[in-house]
C-alpha cells in the first residue's frame, strides 16, 4: 500500500514537472464575436455583396458588415458557408474564395483566392483545408468536374490538389484522419483519407445529401427526397451505413437547424406554382414529428439559439435590399423581427 502511495507521489510529481515544462499555445483573448449569433448574409448574385452580421441576443445589438468594418475592405463574394473549426472562422464564398478570420474580431488571417470555382463548404483535417467545390459548369449547366480542393495550410494559400468526387459536393465533416463528403446530386457519400488525399470509399444513400452533424456520439447525415427526408448514421470503424430513419416530409430544401431535446427544424418549400414555404419539426432520437410546424413564404435560412430556445428564420426579401430575421419561440410564436444584411441564409451560434 505504502509502495503504491510512493508510486502515486512520484507520478504526481513527474506529471507536475512535465506540465510545468510544456510550452502551451498562447491563449487567444476572447473577442466581441466569440459569443452571440453570426448571421450569414449571402449577398445578391452578380453583386458580390455577401457579408456577416453579428447579433448580441442578450441586448439585441446588431452589427452589420463586420468583415468590412474589421478589415477596411469589402468581403466581395457570395457567402455560402461560415465554418468554425480549429479556433478559426472560415468564410466560404461560392464565387471562388475563402477568407480566414480571427473569430473574435474578424480580422483577416489569410485567404484562398485562386484555384477554386464554386466552393461550398470546408473542413480542417491533418493541418490542411479540404474544400468542397462544384467545379465549373458545362454546356448544360451540369457540374461533371466537381472536386474537393486541398490547401496545405489552414490559413489559406494555393490549392495543391483537387480530389474528384461526384457532382455537387456540399457539406463535409472530419472524423480522425477521415473526411465524409456529402455528394448531393448523385446521392453519394465519399470517405476521404486526409493524409493520402484520396477517396477511399463511396457509399450510396437515398435523396440529396445535405448536412452532416454529430449527435449521441455518432455522425449523422441529413438527406432530402421529394416526399421524405432521411437521416443516416455511420459505423465509423469501417464507414458503412448503421441506421436509416425516414420521415414523410415533402419538399425539404436541405436547410436544417438543431434545437433543444434533439429536435430538428427543417425548411421546406413547395416551389412553383404555390411557393408555400414551411418548417417541419422532427427528431431522430425522440418522438417529435410535425411536418407543418410553421408556414409562410420567402424563407431563406434557419438557425436555432439553444441557450434561449429561439428559432431564427431568415427572409431574403427578394434580394432587393436587406433581408429580415424573424425570431420564434419553441411553440412557433413570433417574438420579434429585425433587419439583417442582403440575403440572410444561415446562422452560426457562438
Amino acid at each position: 500500500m505504502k509502495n503504491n502511495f510512493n508510486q502515486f507521489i512520484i507520478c504526481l510529481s513527474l506529471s507536475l514537472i512535465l506540465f510545468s515544462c510544456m510550452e502551451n499555445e498562447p491563449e487567444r483573448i476572447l473577442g466581441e464575436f466569440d459569443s452571440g449569433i453570426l448571421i450569414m448574409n449571402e449577398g445578391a448574385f452578380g453583386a458580390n455583396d455577401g457579408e456577416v452580421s453579428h447579433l448580441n441576443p442578450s441586448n439585441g445589438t446588431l452589427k452589420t458588415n463586420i468583415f468590412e468594418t474589421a478589415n477596411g475592405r469589402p468581403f466581395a463574394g457570395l457567402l455560402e458557408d461560415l465554418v468554425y473549426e480549429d479556433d478559426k472562422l472560415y468564410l466560404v464564398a461560392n464565387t471562388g474564395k475563402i477568407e480566414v478570420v480571427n473569430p473574435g474580431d474578424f480580422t483577416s488571417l489569410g485567404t484562398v483566392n485562386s484555384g477554386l470555382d464554386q466552393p461550398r463548404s470546408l473542413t480542417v483535417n491533418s493541418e490542411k483545408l479540404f474544400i468542397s467545390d462544384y467545379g465549373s459548369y458545362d454546356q448544360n449547366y451540369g457540374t461533371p468536374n466537381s472536386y474537393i480542393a486541398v490547401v496545405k495550410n489552414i490559413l489559406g494559400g494555393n490549392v495543391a490538389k483537387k480530389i474528384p468526387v461526384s457532382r455537387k459536393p456540399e457539406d463535409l465533416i472530419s472524423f480522425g484522419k477521415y473526411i465524409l463528403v456529402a455528394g448531393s446530386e448523385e446521392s453519394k457519400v465519399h470517405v476521404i483519407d486526409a493524409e493520402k488525399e484520396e477517396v477511399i470509399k463511396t457509399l450510396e444513400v437515398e435523396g440529396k445529401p445535405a448536412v452532416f452533424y454529430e449527435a449521441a456520439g455518432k455522425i449523422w447525415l441529413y438527406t432530402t427526397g421529394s416526399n421524405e427526408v432521411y437521416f443516416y448514421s455511420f459505423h465509423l470503424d469501417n464507414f458503412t451505413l448503421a441506421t436509416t430513419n425516414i420521415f414523410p416530409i415533402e419538399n425539404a430544401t436541405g436547410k436544417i437547424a438543431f434545437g433543444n431535446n434533439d429536435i430538428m427544424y427543417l425548411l421546406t418549400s413547395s416551389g412553383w406554382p404555390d411557393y408555400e414555404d414551411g418548417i417541419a419539426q422532427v427528431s431522430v432520437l425522440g418522438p417529435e414529428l410535425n411536418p407543418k410546424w410553421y408556414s409562410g413564404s420567402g424563407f431563406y435560412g434557419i438557425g436555432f439559439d439553444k441557450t434561449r430556445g429561439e428559432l431564427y428564420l431568415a427572409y431574403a426579401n427578394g434580394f432587393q435590399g436587406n433581408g429580415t430575421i424573424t425570431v420564434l419561440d419553441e411553440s412557433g410564436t413570433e417574438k420579434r423581427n429585425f433587419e439583417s444584411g442582403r440575403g440572410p441564409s444561415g446562422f452560426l451560434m457562438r
Partner: protein
Amino acid sequence: MMLFVWVMLLFDQKVEKADTLLLQEIQIEAPAYQTYGQGKKRISWNKEELKSYKNRSLADLLAEKSPVFIRQYGPGMLASPNFRGTSAGHTAIFWNGIPINSPSLGQSDLSILPLIIADQIDLSYGSDGALLGNESLGGAVHLSTTPQFNQSPNLSILQETGSFGKFHIGLEGSYSTEKIGIQTKIYHQNNPNEYSYRDFSEVGSPVKKQDHAAFQQQGFQQDVHWKINTNQLLKTSYWWNKANREIQPILGSFIQDTQSDESHRISLQYFIQKQNSILEFRSGWVKDSQYFNQIKNETSSIFFNSDWSIHHFSDWEFRLGGRVSLNSGNFSSYSARETRLETYQFINFSGIKHVDVSFNLRQLKYENQWVPFIPSFGLNWKLSQEFLLKASFGKGFKIPTLNDRFWEPGGNPNLLPEESWQGEMGVLWQKGSLESQLTFYGMEVDNWIIWKPEGSIWTPQNLRKVRNRGIEWENKLHSSFGQNKLLFFWSYTFTHSVNLPNPEDPTTFWNQQLPYTPRHQGQASLKLSKSKFTFQIGSQYVGSRATTLDQTRLLKGYFLSQTQLGLDNLNLGPFKYTIQFRVQNLFNKEYQVLYLRPMPGRSFHINLSIQL
C-alpha cells in the same frame, strides 16, 4: 472581295456630282415617331455629329451625350440603359425600324452596338407604346441608315489605336446613281483591355492589371437602296455583328467566363407613293446566337409591317398599319415560340394656328392576352417666335420576355405586361444662338417584373410599382467670331424614381429611390473650331447611386472628362485625312459605375481617317 468590288466601282465608274443633277425626288414618309410624335421630346445625332464616335459604341455616345444612365459592367462589357428611372428592358432599340432587343432578355447590350453602322441616331424620350410599340417605357433609341443617291463614290478607312491595346479599323464605302444607292461598312476591333485598377477587395488594395476582359468585334453592314421609279423605293439592309468577350469578373471573383454574341439582321422596306398617300411594307429578321461559356442560346424574330399614310386633307394626316411578329427561342433550359399581332392608327392635326396635335392608338394581341387600348396624345404649341410648348401623355407597355415566361425552372407564364403611364411638358426657348429646353415628366410603372427566390428557385413576379418624376434641362449656345466657331452645351437631369409601398415588401423598401438610379446627372461640353482645327472638351457628372432598394450602400458620384483635338480634311495628294487625338478620363478618376467593378483610368487614343 468586297474591297475589290469597291475599288472597281470607284475607279471604273464616273458619277456626276450631286449638285450638278436635277433629281426626280420621291417623297419618303418619315418614320412615324418623327411625324406623329408631337409634344414628345427627342434628340438626334446626324452623320456629322457621329463622326467622332464611329470607332465607339452606342453605350459611349449615350453616356457622354444624353441623360440616359448607362449601367456598365466594365469597359466593353454588358452595358444597359437606365432611362428616366426605368430598367434596362424599358428602352426599345430599333435598327432601320426593326426592334432589335432580344426577345428572351428584353434588352440589348449597348457595348456591342457599334456606331459605325448608323448614319443617324434618334433618342425618343418617355413612354409611347402607341407610336413605338413594345418596351418603350423609358424611351427608345433609333439607329438608321439613310439612303443616298447621286453622290460621289466614297471610300474611307478609319483607324483607332489606343491605350490598353485597343485597335479598331473600319471601312466605309458608298456608291450611288440616280436610281441606286449602295453603302457598305466593315469593322473590326481588338481590345485586350489590359487596364490597371486597384483591387480594394484584397489586403493592401494591390494595383492589378485586368487580364480577363479582352474583346474582339467584327461586323459588316450592307445597304442597297433602289429607286425603282418615280413613286417606288426599295430599301434593304443587312447587318452581321459578332463579338467575342472575356467576361470581366467582379472583384472577389475569379471566374473565367467567356461570351460570344452573333447577330444577323435584315431590314426590307418598300414604299409606293400614290396620290395623297404612301403605302409602306416593311419586314425584318433578327437572329441572335449567344454562347455563354459553352452554353448556347438562340433567338429569332421575324416582322411584317404594312402602313398606309394618308395626306388627303390639308390639316389632317393619318397612318394606319399593322404588324405581325414571330418570336422563337431555343435555350439550354427551354424552347418557346410566340406570335404577336398589332394594329395602330396615328393621326396628326394642324388645323389650329400654331398648334400641331397628334393622337395615336395601338392594339396588341400576344398568346391569349389582348391589350386593346394603348393611346398617346401630344401637342406642339408655338407660343411665340421664341417659345415652343410641348406636352404629351401616353401609355407604354412591355410584354414579359420569353425568359420571364418560359425559363425552366421558374418561368412564370401568368405574368402580366408591365405598363406605364407618362405625362410630360416642356418649353423650348430659342433666341439668337441660344437654345434652351426644360422638360418635366411624371410616370408610373405598374406590374414591374422582378425575379426573386421562392425556396431554391428564382421566379419572376409582377411585384413593383414605381413612380418616376424628373426634370431635364438642356442648353446649347452657338457662337461665331471671325473664323472661330464655338458650341457650348450644358445639361442637368434630375430623376426621382421611387418604389411605391407594397405590402409584400418590408417598409424599408417603400418610397425609396431605385437602385443604380442617380438622382442628379449633369453634362457640359465645349467645342471650338477654326478652319480645319477642332478642340473639344466634355465632362459628365453622375450622382451617387444606391446598390439596393433600402439605400444601405451608396456609391459615390463621379465626374468624368474627356478631351479631343482634331485636324479635319487635310489634303495629301488625292486623299483627305482627318487626325484626332483623344483622352478619355482626362483626370484619371478612379470610379465604379457598378459596385466592385472598377473602371479604367486615363487612356489615350489616336484616330486616323483617310478618305480616298
